[in-house]
């Protein structure tokens, strides 16, 4: 049987014809914001790399108090190219979150979340939050002093929430303090719970993107302008492949040249080391918590900070509904809010690093 015959056999048996037909018919509008379409698929590329390298690391990683740091050390020093696999895993996480943030901001500023794409925006935002949770849970796994201290700070934040706060902290830690149970729990979250959640939400997100099609600029939509378009297959896919190749090359280059090191195993009884810092994407939240005073009238400063962060998170999640008319006055406020938010996050992150 020829190669073509084998492909046709699979297409027939797996009933892939409707999907292939759909891909042939799918159109990608061409306009000055088309470049942002590529960010979505780049996230998928990094997620795929995360899965492959994550599986390789999980083959040797031991999620126990005694074995965590030593097993990461073993991966780095004994296994062939183990340090590189760990480096690619770590850097692709950074790349994935960076691309997801860029993707979200592009959608924010082009107002692509407007009707009928509200749920697409909401699922996308959930995916970004889950990606950050991947980063948070993964940060503890090497079990060094810095990751232990950062996790203590991170899991302490929910305590500021009234009624359920202490319970959430205990749920995350598996007790009152960060211990070996927390490590096992974070490992399960990292390799089991969060991947399931990501896949479930991602399927809905991608299906919605296919159902509604790619959004076009608001101005062109209002003017009902007929935009030029390109077929998704093969014209757009080929362009995407070019971008994936370049991103893959950059990722591997950075992973080889700037591989992360491994600190000494964490000591539960030791005081927190100086200069505790979370991952770069949590720096602005970390600094926000730091700038609030201990007490603000009848409530603690931490409570006010956490409440504000939660309000902003909920507002972003429901943004398509809060905005109303995408050409209205409130819509401009949302855009300015986004710009201010980006400036705030950059300034706070830099401040945190100083």
């Amino acid at each position, binding site marked *: 049987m020829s190669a073509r015959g084998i492909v046709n056999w699979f297409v027939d048996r797996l009933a892939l014809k409707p999907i292939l037909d759909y891909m042939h018919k799918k159109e990608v509008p061409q306009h000055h914001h088309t470049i942002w379409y590529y960010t979505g698929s780049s996230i998928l590329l990094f997620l795929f790399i995360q899965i492959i390298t994550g599986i390789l690391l999980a083959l040797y990683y031991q999620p126990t108090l005694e074995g965590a740091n030593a097993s990461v050390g073993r991966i780095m020093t004994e296994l062939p190219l183990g340090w590189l696999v760990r480096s690619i895993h770590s850097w692709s996480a950074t790349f994935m979150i960076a691309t997801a943030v860029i993707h979200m901001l592009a959608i924010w500023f082009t107002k692509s979340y407007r009707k009928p794409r509200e749920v697409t925006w909401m699922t996308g935002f959930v995916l970004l939050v889950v990606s950050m949770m991947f980063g948070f849970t993964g940060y503890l796994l090497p079990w060094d002093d810095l990751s232990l201290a950062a996790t203590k700070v991170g899991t302490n934040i929910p305590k500021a929430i009234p009624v359920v706060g202490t319970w959430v902290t205990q749920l995350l830690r598996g007790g009152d303090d960060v211990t070996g149970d927390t490590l096992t729990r974070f490992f399960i979250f990292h390799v089991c719970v969060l991947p399931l959640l990501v896949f479930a939400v991602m399927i809905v997100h991608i299906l919605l993107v296919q159902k509604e099609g790619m959004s076009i600029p608001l101005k062109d939509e209002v003017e009902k302008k007929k935009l030029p378009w390109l077929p998704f297959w093969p014209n757009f896919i080929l362009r995407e492949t070019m971008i994936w190749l*370049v991103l893959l090359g950059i990722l*591997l280059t950075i992973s080889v040249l*700037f591989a992360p090191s491994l600190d000494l195993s964490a000591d539960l009884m030791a005081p927190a080391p100086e200069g505790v810092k979370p991952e770069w994407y949590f720096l602005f939240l970390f600094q926000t918590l730091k700038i609030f005073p201990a007490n603000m009238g009848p409530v603690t400063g931490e409570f006010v900070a956490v409440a504000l962060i939660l309000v902003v998170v909920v507002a972003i999640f429901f943004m398509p509904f809060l905005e109303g008319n995408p050409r209205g006055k409130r819509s401009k406020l949302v855009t300015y809010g986004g710009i201010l938010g980006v400036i705030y996050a950059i300034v706070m992150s830099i401040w945190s690093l100083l």
Partner: protein
Amino acid sequence: MRKLGFGFLLVTVSLAMVPPATIAGQAGTPPSVKDKAQVEAALSSGQTGEAPAPQDVKPAASTAAKPAAKKPPAIRTEPIVPAYQNIKERAAVQVFFVWLWLSIGVLLYFLRWWVQEADRVFKAKFYEPVESPRKDNPLPPLLGE
């Protein structure tokens, strides 16, 4: 554009020649065997969570008779800086690096062609149903049509 791409490729390939240890501050030191031994010892001793002092461990006269004998424990005292394990691995990574960027360069070159060809075919409406020039003035079908 092509010159720029070639320059980028050249810079990356030369960067690939620099071992990561140099950048990380451990010029050319291969992964220390000491580190390896320490990790091994930490792994074996770490199961109990305790690390007995080296002098407490006596060499076993008969290994069969004393199954509890452990390897000399050693707790790692320095962070592990990522580095090539040996010259073979270093060479493998460098060859891979060069191969990677060359492949990317070659693939991008062909993909660009492919994109141009796909766009040309699309603009020429190659796959769209052909409108017959006889549409407005239909003629009877030819024999055998």
